[in-house]
């Protein structure tokens, strides 16, 4: 009994164990890696990525996918920069307006998916291009610099030894975790992702849930864009795009099902950290960039392969005649 419990614990936390093992291995091989500063740095660098991935995780749990994350982040980053510089709005107001822009972009994705009755993946494939057009039109392909210090502090500030972005990640993770696990709304997200028709017949307003999920994801993308642009001190049409596939990779690594209805916030975070530490660790032990890609690819295949293997083994086991 206890043995099977331990086995289950290991199986449920496989990716976390892989992450810890990986960190330990890098610690052994690289003195530079094992400093608190480096570890904090990696977390801070990846903060925006983790926040965006949590947004994507929400969409995936509800049975969709979002490919427009990166372009949406570019639009939001540029909007905030323009609110502050072109319109001269205070930082707080610019941030609030930025969050609203994020929510609008997200809701638009969800609304279109409902209206056209097509899979969100296709919708966001289209809006990805749409948002790209908007971001270039807004920015005129210029970069924005010279943000107020209070804005820069969001990305670069520290509270004690812990960076502000990491604190934001922790707050986001706790809030979204509680929302998914403890609230009715969270249940409905799993229900819609698990089986939309059953959910509808159980009295759940599936369309509303979908739009809300995309809206919340949009707000998270806005937060990610704020962390990213404030840390880098600049915003442009190139800052943000590219993160979409990393987000999906991290979610899949973290056990969030592509089909929907399954997954946890914890999984998305672990997936992001695996990717983040892997990149950093390989740099620290002096691996070439090209080799890094190869290693990353192999590790991804191996870990996802192992996970799927475990899952199918479990599914085959119970007897049903």
């Amino acid at each position, binding site marked *: 009994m206890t043995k099977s419990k331990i086995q289950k614990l290991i199986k449920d936390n496989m990716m976390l164990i892989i992450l810890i093992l990986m960190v330990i291995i890098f610690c052994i091989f690289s003195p530079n890696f094992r400093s608190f500063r480096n570890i904090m740095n990696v977390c801070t660098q990846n903060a925006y990525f983790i926040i965006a991935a949590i947004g994507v995780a929400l969409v995936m749990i509800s049975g969709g996918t979002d490919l427009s994350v990166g372009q949406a982040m570019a639009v939001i980053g540029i909007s905030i920069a323009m609110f502050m510089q072109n319109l001269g709005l205070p930082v707080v107001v610019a941030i609030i307006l930025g969050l609203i822009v994020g929510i609008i972009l997200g809701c638009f994705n969800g609304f279109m998916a409902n209206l056209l009755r097509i899979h969100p993946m296709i919708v966001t494939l289209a809006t990805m291009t749409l948002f790209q057009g908007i971001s270039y039109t807004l920015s005129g392909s210029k970069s924005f610099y010279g943000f107020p210090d209070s804005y820069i502090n969001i990305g670069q500030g520290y509270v004690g030894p812990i960076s502000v972005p990491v604190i934001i990640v922790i707050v986001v993770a706790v809030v979204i975790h509680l929302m998914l696990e403890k609230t009715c709304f969270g249940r409905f997200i799993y229900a819609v992702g698990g089986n939309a028709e059953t959910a509808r017949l*159980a009295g*759940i307003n599936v369309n509303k849930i979908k739009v809300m999920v995309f809206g919340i994801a949009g707000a998270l993308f806005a937060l990610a864009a704020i962390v990213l642009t404030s840390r880098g001190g600049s915003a442009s049409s190139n800052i943000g795009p590219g993160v979409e596939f990393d987000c999906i990779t991290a979610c899949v690594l973290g056990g969030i099902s592509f089909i929907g209805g399954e997954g946890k916030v914890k999984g998305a975070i672990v997936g992001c950290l695996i990717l983040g530490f892997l990149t950093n660790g390989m740099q620290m032990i002096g691996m070439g960039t090209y080799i890094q890609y190869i290693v990353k690819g192999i590790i991804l295949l191996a870990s996802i392969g192992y996970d799927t293997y475990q899952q199918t083994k479990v599914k085959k086991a119970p007897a049903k005649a």
Partner: protein
Amino acid sequence: MESKTVLSMKNITKLYPGVVALDNVSVDFKAGEVHALLGENGAGKSTLIKVLSGAITNDGGKIVIGGNEYDHMTPAISRGCGVEVIYQEYNLIGGLSVAENICLGRQMHGLVNKKEMVSVTQELFEKYHININPRAYVKELSTAQQQLVEITKAISKDAQIIVMDEPTAQLTMSEVNNLYEIIRNLKAKGKTVIYISHRLEELFEITDRVTIMRDGAYVTTVDTDKTTRDELITLMVGRELNDSYPKRDCVRDEVALKVEHVSGYHNTDVSFELKKGEILGVSGLVGAGRTELMRVIFGADKKLAGTVYVDGKEVHIHSPKEALELGIGLIPEDRKMQGCFLNSSIEWNISISNIRKLTTGRFIDKKKVRRQAEHYEKMLNIKTPSLEQKVRNLSGGNQQKVVLAKVLAADTEIIIFDEPTRGIDIGARHEIYDLMSDLVKEGKAIIMVSSDMEELLGMSDRIIVLSEGKLTGELKKDEFSQEAIMHLASHE
């Protein structure tokens, strides 16, 4: 007539962790016979078939087929020996034509020759009197037609032993007769048909022998013409089962639901009343618009015209959510795809429709969720080791109870059961019947859509019949008869 044995399964044993799925089962199958496998869900029928088809490997025993002895099968050997299994889920490719599906996997050299495929298919169809256009796309065919294609595909591979798993589950009366015709045809050509079905009357219609299994063990094999229905039931459940339907007399005068001139995409101008304490049977052929009518009333599909009254008040239902709020619940026909969340736990499923009431502050109260699930586990006698068990792992009967619990948890007074016992074994069926009776005795009202004639006649207080989307008649209890229903159902 003594014919030779074409297949013997000897002392087959299959173990799963903690469960003996097959316990030393031995059966012989003869050439030119229709041999039924009968047993409740979990009796081991499907496992035995999977051993035969090589889908799973047996832990003990031998299979003698075509003069060779095998310790176990692989899908390739099984095929090579002329065994073809037609599963309940059809393995056809919707985007290909009928001919392409039938010829799929055949040895054809060089380029794909569509003409040859069509002529091969046409020839087979003529031989078995099947009327389907070989050039049609499979996705455009009805379920019954798809099944015929599947059977033809099996025959085309020169199968000697054809296994049919619940072949009539989704067929209408005339389609079933068509299927019987084909089975008789196969039999006449010396082929063996292994026939798995829950419907006892079918066995008497079509089979020569019946092998009964129970709890993974072989019980006995009987000649169909020397047995009776009652004997089969007794052998199958291992105990005397009271086959009669629960008696009750609880129809009240108050009208729970009134439907006036309702039309949807599949229905025109349907009117009926449902009283409290009443079970209203809804009959009709497949495609008559029964399920569609129920979905319109429940708000799942669009209502184009007409009025619905609940407790005498006119209501406007635009979504299942609104229907549930008015106390109308639906237990859908397709339990797995629409009734429950297969990958979620029992308590999760039961609580999903009233989760808003199971909270403390803003958060879900796990204790309340558990308490409610325990309440329904007891009330409906859901058999499970734990309420955290995934619904996927339950038997059909227990899954249906979970769906019922979910609907009851939403405080429903009017419950629509669409095919309440499809795919559920006979023991659990009667439990469902008893539960339905208990519910109407409490004053709830039930609409029961069913294709099972016996259940319809046994359970209903009144029956309405649909044909081509229209109401063609209503029968009171003293007018009940299969003939009367069929007459109305085939009404033009």
